[in-house]
């Protein structure tokens, strides 16, 4: 049914090396990311977790080419992002990266299908029909492709967003709290699709979340506190993640 998944390789789809992001200067200086080094393996589902203000979203934005950074380096595939101009970054996002945001993923004037193919339309490319059909079938949107976002439920809208992120077969898909606005059932569906895209389609997914249940869908969880990676966990369970998170909230840890 689907094109066969690419062989699992130990290579990374994207990585950050000594990545720092500093806002302001002098007294108002805030370090959002403090020499973070992390790699996101190909065909893996990685979750980035941390308390609010930990810099998890900033890390994702920097790696995804949405935000600039102060020092260090970021690679998506073989491309070093620090050297790219705004236009090259835009092109990278368009061709190599997929996004699912917490809310407002879709253009209200476009139909579901048009939203899904938007990045390819921007690039002026036609979608790989077979792949596109597969993605649409996977997220179960076949009957609703002609609908406008306003005619879809919140869960359906996020499914369209997932389909859009996957449609162009990007090197890596980033999710920024993709289930944050959904009820638990719809959220579980979305997380299921993201996991399936890794398992059956061989996609690489990186997701920022503060929800231990969401994190438990990932293959690996990276924990961020105060702009530093403090721990990681493979094949996580929701309870395990919750336990670890609680330990970060202790005064001892916060003080560091």
């Amino acid at each position: 049914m689907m094109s066969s998944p690419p062989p699992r390789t130990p290579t990374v789809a994207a990585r950050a090396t000594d990545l720092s992001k500093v806002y302001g200067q002098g007294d108002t200086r805030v370090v959002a990311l403090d020499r973070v080094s992390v790699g996101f393996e190909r065909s893996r589902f990685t979750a980035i977790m941390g308390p609010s203000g930990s810099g998890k979203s900033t890390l994702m934005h920097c790696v995804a080419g949405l935000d600039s950074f102060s020092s260090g380096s970021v690679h998506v595939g073989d491309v070093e992002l620090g050297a790219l101009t705004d236009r090259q970054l835009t092109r990278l996002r368009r061709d190599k990266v997929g996004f699912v945001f917490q809310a407002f993923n879709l253009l209200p004037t476009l139909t579901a299908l048009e939203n899904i193919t938007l990045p390819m339309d921007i690039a002026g490319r036609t979608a790989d029909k077979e792949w596109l059909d597969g993605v649409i079938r996977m997220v179960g949107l076949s009957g609703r492709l002609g609908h406008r976002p306003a005619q879809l439920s919140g869960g359906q809208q996020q499914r369209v967003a997932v389909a859009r992120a996957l449609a162009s077969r990007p090197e890596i898909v980033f999710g920024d709290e993709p289930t944050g606005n959904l009820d638990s059932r719809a959220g579980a569906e979305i997380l299921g699709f993201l996991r399936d895209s890794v398992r059956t389609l061989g996609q690489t997914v990186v997701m920022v979340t503060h929800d231990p249940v969401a994190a438990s869908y990932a293959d690996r969880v990276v924990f961020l506190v105060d702009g530093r990676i403090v721990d990681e966990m493979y094949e996580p369970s929701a309870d395990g993640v919750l336990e670890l998170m609680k330990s970060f909230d202790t005064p001892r840890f916060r003080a560091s």
Partner: protein
Amino acid sequence: MFRTALRNVLAHKARLLMTVLAVMLGVAFVSGTLIFNDTLSGGYRDQAARNYAHVDVEVRSYDPSDKVPGLSGKALDEIARLDGVAGAAGRVGGSAGVVDRNGGLLGGGSSGMGANFAPGKDGKDPLYVFTDGSGPTEPRQVALDKDTAEQGGYHVGDTVRVAFRGPAKTYELSGIFTTDDTWVALGDSLALFDTPTAQRLFLQPGYYEYATVTAAPGTSNTELAATLRKLLPDDTDVKTGRQLADERARGGASDASTLSAILLAFAAVALFVSVFLIANTFTMLAAQRTRELALLRAVGASRRQVTRSVLVEAMVVGAVGAAAGLGLGAAMAAVARSTVGVFGTKNPDGPLVVTSSTVLVAAAVGILVTMVAAWLPARRAAKIPPVAAIGSAHLPATTRSLLIRNLLGGIITLLGAAVVVAGAGAGGSTAKGLVGLGALLVVTGVLVLIPLLSRHVIAVVQPLLRAGFGVSGKLAGRNAVRSPRRTGATASALAIGLTVVSAMTVLATTLGQSMDRMTTDIVKADYMVTDSGASLDTSAAAALRKAPGVTTVSKEQQSWMRLDGIQEDVSAVTPADFDKTIRLPVVSGSQDTLAQGQVAVADDEARAHGWKVGDTLPAVYGDDDKRRKLTVGAVFESNEVVLPVVVSADVIDPNATSTTLSRVYLKAEGSTNEKALADALAGRPGIKIDDRQAIRDEFGGAFDTVLNVLYALLAISLVIAVLGVVNTLAMSVFERQREVGMLRAVGLDRRGVTRMIQLESVVISLFGAATGIAVGTFLGWAVGEVTKAEIPRYALVLPWGRFGIFLLSAALVGLLAAMWPARSAARLNMLTAIKSE
């Protein structure tokens, strides 16, 4: 509530900017017109007062049809001897063009004036103050006004040529003077001669046109006037300087107020256009502040209070706009006064007059227009339910059904169209009323329907946008129809201006072309010679006869006669030559009858007075009152080329006493050209030679000038419409920040975003322009249908070229309007845009 409103205005400064600008421009147009009018009227009054400052009483008994050509020298002496009269100066004047060193005419392009220098006992003429030399006392002498002398670079003692009828004559410059004469102040040239010379040139030796009388000490001007009136014959006109000054000031002021009325009509269009922009702004502001307004309601504000708070905002905006507009209006009036002078006449100088009523009108117009425009949005804002404050979902702009609006618009438009068509078919004076009413209905209906139209019209161009500009084009097209009301209101502002422009252009082009067809049908001459001074006479015609290649010289004199008791202007021609150069568009009878001493009359005159071919009508003409009989030999279509009555010069002036010609038509063989003709006319400045093309332009060209003035007047409305487009786009970009951020995130580059906004702007502008052109063409057609009976050779002409230019300009305007909003959209920080709630 007032404080809340004031804070809101301050908080939305940037978003209210366009509204303030629109109000400002509208008010500037109104107040500028009023200030211009008051200033000119004041200037004319001052100038007229100065002009007559040295005239106590003026006595005039000049009537060109009288046997006696004016005031005789004897009559003047009698006046001078009367009790209470200190002095009486006889005056006479006429056309006199001062020739510059290159053979052209000096002065403001209009014909110059000549007059006599009438020194009193002290050797001075109170009307003229000599700055150099002295007044002319010998026939070979002339004196010039200072401006003219400076323009020509003439100094006392120089030789100056002055043109009257016939070749220019040479004089010696005796002096240079200044004067308070109104026409000289307005830019005309004035040449003074000694009295006998002036009498010979302009009237008849021994006669004066009028006399200026100075009162003796102890006699008031009114007393003097009363005395003179008693003593002089009844048909003598006796007026004090004061009366004359008032009359002249009224004349100038009435010209100025006619102009003002036209300007105010265009100001009204501009204000009407700004209503759309203002209403749009307040609608959008209310939509953006839905939650805020709902919160006000939730904490206990009544609907009326919400409405009032929006209206107070409108009032503040209106007041600010009105104040700025008044300042700009004063500046515009000052500029207008000095630039109008560049084209020919100068305007009187003096201080700008800003009356308290102008200030009141400016304030009232600015505030009322803004509040009226904000009325509906304010009412709508009050209808926001308090619960909207709590709703967590982002409330989209109200999507009330357009059904009722569309039905209403459809009915009004169809009704209007039906009335117009009925009117166009009817004819007569009721037709004009019907077409006017129908036109108003159609325009209203289309404005009501414009949101619906926008959806369908833009849907048609959607594939083009997609094909031409990819995603940016597709999104632009979709965005343009997203909020049909808003798009509609924005496009309406442009449509109104272009409706007027297009209707006028269609009419002017149609009229111009029918005029042109008429001209080419009638005028068979190769050249037409006319005169801006008064030097075209029979001797000039004789000179042209000798020019190489000239085969026919057809002379036309303008005269008048009483035909069947009706005063008619007459073209007096030489039939044999006339036949070769002019083919009258004869309806009945024949042009050949002119040679038999019969008259040809225009059809509109013939209809009005019941004349037909073969009728013999009583006619009075020439220097005597003898009644003669003339037979109508032809009736022709009324036209611009000849006067309504054409007759042989042998009939009207058998002894050829009059030598002045109004026009000369020439037939020529190949060997001639304008240069040869001009050479033949050397020494007669101010004569103009038109070839065939120039003849066509002469008769049809006036429409182009009118059109250009019209375009200039509508420019302010168009500027306001552009502000409206900027406004709408800026608001839309603000509302769609998150979308733009998302598009940037998924890979649309800055250029793509810029292009998307630009295209949306261009699409809206083109839609507005196209709607305006369509409605304007319809109106132009309707007016043409009603008036075509009065226009010979009428055939509707659609100025496709101009329409193309309008559309192209609209597209450019769209690009221009998108500049700022597109830039700010492209510069959005996508992360904050996506996160912003």
